[in-house]
């Protein structure tokens, strides 16, 4: 079963359109959603969560039409964790106990201790990192099968980010647990994701297994004249300087004998995003 199936989904705004998006996240995997600001990442997540209604297409979450999907099975962390600022972690646990039928208070308490969060400090006194950790502790404490994180690691220091990524990896150790996370921090996605999806101006540029990206794409460094030899569709993106050209290429489309070095997802994203501007 797929955790997420997005088929031909369209959403039109006055100045932006999500254009016939197709995306599949197999169960048990982590997918990273990359894109510039305004690429459509948050729109996609809002559509998944039925916060906005699409203009076309279908969305299936955990085998069910997304509007009928049981939200008990989905843990969500938004870019801002939106608890009223008078609440403490203790209050949040007590409220969520009555919101989720599958709430695990023991697990929540264990996570609060593990993440060194205070029980009685009001939310307004939390740092961004602490807020995010509380949001993640809630998302992980109700036996969710699918986690959806929208820019959850943005603005966090590297130590907290690492803690968050460890929690995600722990979560996916259980069979059929899946994660969709959008982030600007490509290195985070590169660390934990099995699949990478690139969105640009509402269009999906690619959605591929991370290992396949390493296999399919490579970096060539050559002179501007040598670059002319390459077919146009072989070059994903390039950076020219006085010393030559650095280009990300499709390995299968370059002539035999050309040497490539391994691609880095961040470079691939930056060059793909730059291309066609």
């Amino acid at each position, binding site marked *: 079963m797929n955790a997420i199936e997005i088929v031909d989904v369209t959403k039109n705004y006055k100045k932006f359109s999500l254009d016939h998006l197709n995306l599949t996240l197999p169960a048990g995997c982590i997918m990273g959603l990359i894109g510039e600001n305004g690429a459509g990442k948050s729109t996609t997540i809002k559509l998944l969560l039925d916060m906005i209604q699409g203009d076309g297409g279908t969305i299936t979450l955990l085998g069910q039409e997304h509007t009928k999907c049981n939200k008990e099975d989905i843990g969500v962390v938004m870019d801002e964790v*939106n608890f009223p600022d008078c609440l403490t972690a203790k209050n949040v646990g007590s*409220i969520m106990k009555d919101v989720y039928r599958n709430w695990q208070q023991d697990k929540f308490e264990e996570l609060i201790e593990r993440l060194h969060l205070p029980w009685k400090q009001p939310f307004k006194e939390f740092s961004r990192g602490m807020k995010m950790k509380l949001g993640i502790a809630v998302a992980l404490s109700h036996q969710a099968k699918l986690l959806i994180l929208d820019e959850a690691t943005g603005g966090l220091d590297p130590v907290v980010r690492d803690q968050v990524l460890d929690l995600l990896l722990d979560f996916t150790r259980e069979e059929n647990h899946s994660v969709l996370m959008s982030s600007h921090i490509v290195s985070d996605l590169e660390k934990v994701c099995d699949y990478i999806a690139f969105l640009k101006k509402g269009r999906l540029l690619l959605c591929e297994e991370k290992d396949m990206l390493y296999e399919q794409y490579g970096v060539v460094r050559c002179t501007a004249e040598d670059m002319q030899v390459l077919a146009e569709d072989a070059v994903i993106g390039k950076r020219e300087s006085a010393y030559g050209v650095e280009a990300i290429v499709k390995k299968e489309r370059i002539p035999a004998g050309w040497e490539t070095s391994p691609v880095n997802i961040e470079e691939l994203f930056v060059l793909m995003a730059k291309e066609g501007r």
Partner: protein
Amino acid sequence: MKGLLKKDLCMLWNYCRSMILILAAFTLVGAFMEDSFFYSFYPVLIVSMLPVTLISYDERFKWDIYCQSLPISRRVQVTEKYLLSLLSVLVVILCCIAAQIYRMLDMAGFNASVIHWGSLPQFVAMLVGLGLISPSLMIPLIYKFGAEKGRMVFFVVVGFFCALGAMVSVKGSMMQVPSFPEFAVILVCLVLFGISWLISVTIYEKKQF
């Protein structure tokens, strides 16, 4: 629903504690004042604004957005606010009735046989009207336009009807305002409250976040 009520009660305790104290003080003072009109009706007016205050806080903290990721339907989210509104108005009305009865007894030298109880249903009907009409009008507007714009629209609507009322009363000063039995007033207020809930649910179920 229980989780949402718990969250709102937490917020009430933290943000509206002073309001609760004011309500208690006014109700108590109302019990001992000879002319208790203002002291009896003011607490009900204040408490009728509670759901709107809570919705504004939800918007401010973006809880309304986060709530869409929880296993709580939009209908239940709206219903909880109406339920809280009804319960809080009911509690304050009961306190005001108790204060009014005490005041009536006090004025009659605690001789129940000389008290004119006939004024009590009228008093209750006015409290119910004051407590329910304001949220009935406000909540759908707040759900439709958001807290800031919703309040503005509310003031415009109320201003329009006040101006209309003033014009009608000037031009038709001879016109008699029909009087309704108290139970009919209470019933109409409850029906209005129910219609308002239906409208709010419809608005909120279509809302895009």
